[in-house]
């Protein structure tokens, strides 16, 4: 009961409500604009959060996360281009339905299923995050090391694209985290005599570079692309018949999305693809999929929004990000001096339940905004890239500079922008780099401290039951893509 009251706290704070309002609005705009999205938007807004108290800052980031994930559906339905990668599966049926003159119905279903998925996942978050945090009390350094390895292998096997390329990207992310003074011995590593690098490479320049700047370069290759936008008259609530057809799909996808979200992977993107394919598998009319099936939209949208709450579970309970956007949220927590993990649940329940409550309200807010403002948000897609991207560049540069007031950070951002572009071009996902960078210190720190505890004996890792379980799970995660590809053959 106390926790429920703590969850409702944001409703009684005008400041938090205002932050939620703007966060949801901003998240929707980011979601609608192809190439942006909650991860890049979150990274861009991170410097601004320094002017806020920790709770308001994280509420802002989480509301952007929830609304941005939904916002991608608007563009997916109207211009056949996913606003966010998580909305890719929504295009498959959303756009054909819109072509049939039912854009309002498609968006109505996307809005309802996203909201249900989002709220479902918040319930999962409220129940499971404290349990997971409780379990984490049993974790020592070796267990955290094994957990971080498990996180990285899961990312490789479940994430999009080649698992080996994902692993290379993840290892590269960890390698970036080793730049600067070694935290145990203060010995310089990969600093090449540059003073600014002794503090290491910051998270913001890497994220903004890999997401925003690489996207700018990608957009520069697409300037002649013509997008056909379907006019939206009004967004419609799904009919009784639609609800009858889709309620099971929405619930199933909400469960799938929440589960996938908990795993450290590309959260919503993978969840929506699995949600979509499961919706097709269970459907009485699978032949309609790809031609404008309302179940297809429900399956994809419920799953990708359900992944938001799921991805917050390991982020808050263990400090292991469940997705790229939660990696940004995790950075926000760290910047504001909040260390996620079991102690957070014990010492700051008001803070945590405030976040849970804010996520719940954000889901309701984007439902309202979606219904009454989808037509306006759809118009945002009309802003030409030749105007939009130079503006994003100005914000990216100033935002990156502002954190440490370092011009080197801006150059690092540009470097990672170019690197990110080529990585994506050749099939290397940039998300594992971010997760690797975030987990790098944890991986190396726990490994080295464990070796001190074990007196240098590596085999001792396998004598710890929890660590051993994570290692076995990591092996299964690595073997999974092989088994999957053999099955497909």
């Amino acid at each position, binding site marked *: 009961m106390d926790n429920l009251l703590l969850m409702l706290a944001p409703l009684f704070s005008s400041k938090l409500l205002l932050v939620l309002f703007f966060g949801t609005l901003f998240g929707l705009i980011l979601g609608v604009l192809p190439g942006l999205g909650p991860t890049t938007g979150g990274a861009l807004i991170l410097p601004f959060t320094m002017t806020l108290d920790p709770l308001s800052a994280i509420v802002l980031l989480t509301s952007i996360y929830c609304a941005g994930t939904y916002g991608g559906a608007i563009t997916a339905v109207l211009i056949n281009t996913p606003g966010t990668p998580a909305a890719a599966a929504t295009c498959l049926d959303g756009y054909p339905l819109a072509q049939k003159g039912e854009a309002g119905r498609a968006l109505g279903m996307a809005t309802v299923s996203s909201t249900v998925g989002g709220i479902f996942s918040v319930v999962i978050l409220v129940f499971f995050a404290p349990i997971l945090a409780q379990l984490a009390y049993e974790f020592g350094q070796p267990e955290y090391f094994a957990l971080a390895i498990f996180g990285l292998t899961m990312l490789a096997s479940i994430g999009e694209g080649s698992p*080996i390329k994902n692993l290379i990207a993840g290892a590269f992310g960890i390698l970036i985290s080793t730049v600067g003074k070694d935290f145990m011995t203060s010995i310089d590593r990969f600093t090449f005599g540059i003073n600014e690098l002794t503090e290491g490479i910051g998270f913001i320049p890497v994220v903004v570079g890999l997401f925003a700047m690489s996207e700018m370069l990608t957009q520069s*290759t697409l*300037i002649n692309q013509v997008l056909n936008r379907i006019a939206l008259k009004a967004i419609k609530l799904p009919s009784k018949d639609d609800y009858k057809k889709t309620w099971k799909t929405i619930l199933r996808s909400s469960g799938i999305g929440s589960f996938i979200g908990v795993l450290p992977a590309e959260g919503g993107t993978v969840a929506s693809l699995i949600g979509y394919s499961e919706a097709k598998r269970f459907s009485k009319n699978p032949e309609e999929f790809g031609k404008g099936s309302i179940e297809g939209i429900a399956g994809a949208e419920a799953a990708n929004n359900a992944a938001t709450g799921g991805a917050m579970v390991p982020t808050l309970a263990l400090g292991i990000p469940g997705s790229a956007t939660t990696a940004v949220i995790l950075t926000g927590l760290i910047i504001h001096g909040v260390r996620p993990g079991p102690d957070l649940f014990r010492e700051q329940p008001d803070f945590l339940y405030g976040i849970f409550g804010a996520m719940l309200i954000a889901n309701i807010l984007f439902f309202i905004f979606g219904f009454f403002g989808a037509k306006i948000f759809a118009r945002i897609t009309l802003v030409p890239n030749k*105007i939009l991207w130079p503006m994003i560049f100005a914000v990216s540069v100033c935002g990156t500079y502002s954190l440490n007031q370092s011009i080197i950070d801006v150059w690092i951002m540009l470097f990672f922008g170019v690197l990110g572009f080529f990585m994506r071009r*050749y099939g290397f996902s940039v998300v594992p780099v971010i997760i690797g960078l975030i987990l790098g210190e944890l991986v190396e720190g726990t490994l080295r401290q464990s070796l001190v505890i074990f007196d*240098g004996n590596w085999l001792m890792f396998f004598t710890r039951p929890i660590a051993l379980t994570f290692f076995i799970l990591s092996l299964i995660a690595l073997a999974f893509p092989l088994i999957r590809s053999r099955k497909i053959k």
Partner: protein
Amino acid sequence: MKNVQKQKRANKSLPFFFRDEFRVSLVIILISVALLITTFTFDIVPPILNRGIQPATFPKALLVLIIVMTLLIYYLATKNPWKVEKKLPRSFFLTLSSFVIFVVVSKTLDFFLAISALSIFVSYCWGEKRLFYLLLVGIIFPIIVFIFFETILGLRFPPGIITNIYYS
């Protein structure tokens, strides 16, 4: 699907050193080897102060892992080639060169001027010819961003021709 297979066949017909998988793998391996050599220059902690492993050991292990995995993706790519990527358009190279211009201008002249120059250059190269919009993205918007960061975040931008005038 057919298109991807066609692109893959096209890739297979190229000599190995022109194929993307070879060039990408080679670049990754060369950079990794260079970094691996660098790790040998890291200071060594005397045994009495050393706790666990040396500071160079972990990055060394990571780099070896990256090299091994890169060899593995190259080996797999010889059996299942990557699809050939389209040639990059002129607009890409212009945008990329604008990044270089930004670095040079921000270092030598002015940070604000660099943002402004890049914004106008990119917008123009991407097809914007209307003066008002060029001014909007190149001058009006950067001024708004500049003042916003300066007043709300209390940010002090690096000295330069324009910023010096503003601060004086």
